[in-house]
């Protein structure tokens, strides 16, 4: 371990400022009593927040995003749980190819996924809407959820499961009573983070929603009108606070109990 290095410390802190300051402008200007986002701030107001209550389109978009987010996160976490188990537990031929195939949706430009799903959806004669958006989000969230779950399951002592089977529990009982409680923090973290990814996702929604706007679509539509900007700022500030809370909760859960289990079960944990 190195001793001190103040130059690097100062650089690191500046980098933190670069990461955080742009995001903080949204909440700052959301309380500003002017239509333009410029300095000096003219006065304090909560008017932009009150404005949000009266926008029925906003409420519809919020509801749409919540529906899509819940379905996408539950389905993708379930699929990812099985896949993560396979990668953490077994060595098999075609392992790397399968892993790569499942990770691709997360790596290729999102616009290509969006366009591909758009083409097949229209060719099949289906209507655009929240269903293809949800499908796209499931595809996009699954690799994320899988990475989180593999980190949790890797190094899990699988003899615990074998012991449970030997003692007469069936496969479901073993899963329910032995594996699930140990995976649970990882599962909840995966659910929360996939929900956030889906909730914030824009490009897939932009191509596939048709007329049912999700929340990012709603914001996109409002951003073009200067006079409507302030309430988008307020909405953005609320979303930032909400997301930050969920993500911190997920990080906390992901690490929860790992120290303790190490002692109790001799489980080697990733990180």
């Amino acid at each position, binding site marked *: 371990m190195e001793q001190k290095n103040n130059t690097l410390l100062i650089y690191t802190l500046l980098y933190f400022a670069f*990461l955080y300051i742009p995001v903080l*402008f*949204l909440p700052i200007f959301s309380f500003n009593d002017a239509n333009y986002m410029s300095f000096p701030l003219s006065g304090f107001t909560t008017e932009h927040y009150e404005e949000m209550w009266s926008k029925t389109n906003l409420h519809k978009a919020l509801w749409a995003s919540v529906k899509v987010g819940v379905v996408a996160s539950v389905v993708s976490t379930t699929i990812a749980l*099985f896949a993560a188990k*396979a*990668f953490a537990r077994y060595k098999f031929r075609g392992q790397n190819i*399968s892993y790569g195939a499942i990770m691709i949706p997360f790596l290729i430009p999102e616009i290509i996924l969006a366009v591909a799903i758009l*083409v097949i959806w229209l060719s099949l004669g289906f209507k655009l809407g929240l269903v293809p958006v949800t499908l796209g989000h499931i*595809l996009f969230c699954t690799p994320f959820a899988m990475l989180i779950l593999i980190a949790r399951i890797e190094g899990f002592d699988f003899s615990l499961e074998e012991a449970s089977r030997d003692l007469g529990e069936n496969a479901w009982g073993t899963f329910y009573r032995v594996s699930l409680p140990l995976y649970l923090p990882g599962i909840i973290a995966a659910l929360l983070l996939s929900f956030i990814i889906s909730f914030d996702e824009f490009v897939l929604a932009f191509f596939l929603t048709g007329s049912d706007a999700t929340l990012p679509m709603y914001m996109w539509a409002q951003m073009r009108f200067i006079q409507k900007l302030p309430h988008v700022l307020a909405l953005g500030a609320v979303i930032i606070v909400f997301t930050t809370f969920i993500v911190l909760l997920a990080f906390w859960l992901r690490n929860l109990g790992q120290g303790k289990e190490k002692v109790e079960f001799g489980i080697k944990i990733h990180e």
Partner: protein
Amino acid sequence: MLQAWKSFYARSDPAKAYSLLSPALILVTLAMLVPLVLMLSFSFFTQVSFTEIDYSFTIQRYIDFFQKNLLVSLLIKSVKISFIVTFVTLLTAYPVCYYIAFYVKKNKMLWLVLLTLPFWTSYLLRVFSWKIILGTKGVINSSLINAGLLNEPLTFLMYSETAVIITLTHAWAAFALLPLYVSLEKIDFSLIEAARDLGLSRLETFWKITLPLSLPGIIGAILIIFIPTVGDYVTPALLGGTDGRMLSNMIQAYFGKVNNIPLGAASATIMLLTVAIVTMVVSYTTKQLSQRIS
């Protein structure tokens, strides 16, 4: 028969692994692979009228693509912007990861969580906040004018390639930070100490030991940033203006108001091929490099 199959299944790890993987593999096949193949086949068709498509095979769309100067220049610009963004992000993120890996002693996880936290706030909102900062009446211009340093707003800040590069560098930071940190953290610090004890200067140690050992992280970061930024849509659409426009904006237009799905599909296919070629070149170079080191 069933019994035989059951006992085969109980002993076969691959069978169990693949049954666990089947939902994910079916999802990837039906929701990605099949649509991509269909998109590829559409790139060989012709848009006859607004609603009508001629389904006979032709490579004319690819010829169209390379005959339209606009499309070729947008492809080149997308690749160029992505390269600059990747390079700048790596260069600026590396010292931060180096600091956390080698100097921070307590609560490293907390530092990492704090570094990646802004990444989780909506991408759209992060891009939008740069609009607030760089805009003609934005934070930078209004502050400079108020301070009396400027009479006219700086127009090059907004709706330009520069704006796109700054915003993307901010937006994709976490994708450089995580792989770089992981690879630096893995380095056995006694190797660095040994190099110093043997008389290498700090710079030589970094050049000969630390940098080569962190190469996997650098490669990971290059790919994970370059691939998605080539196809970025939101940033150029909100901040690029005409100067910072990228290929994805045209792809969107072909699927939207221009309504030329085959040409849009051909453009998307060319983008995908570009990404694939870059990935292969980067992976190949890495292999060569790591062989030369070891």
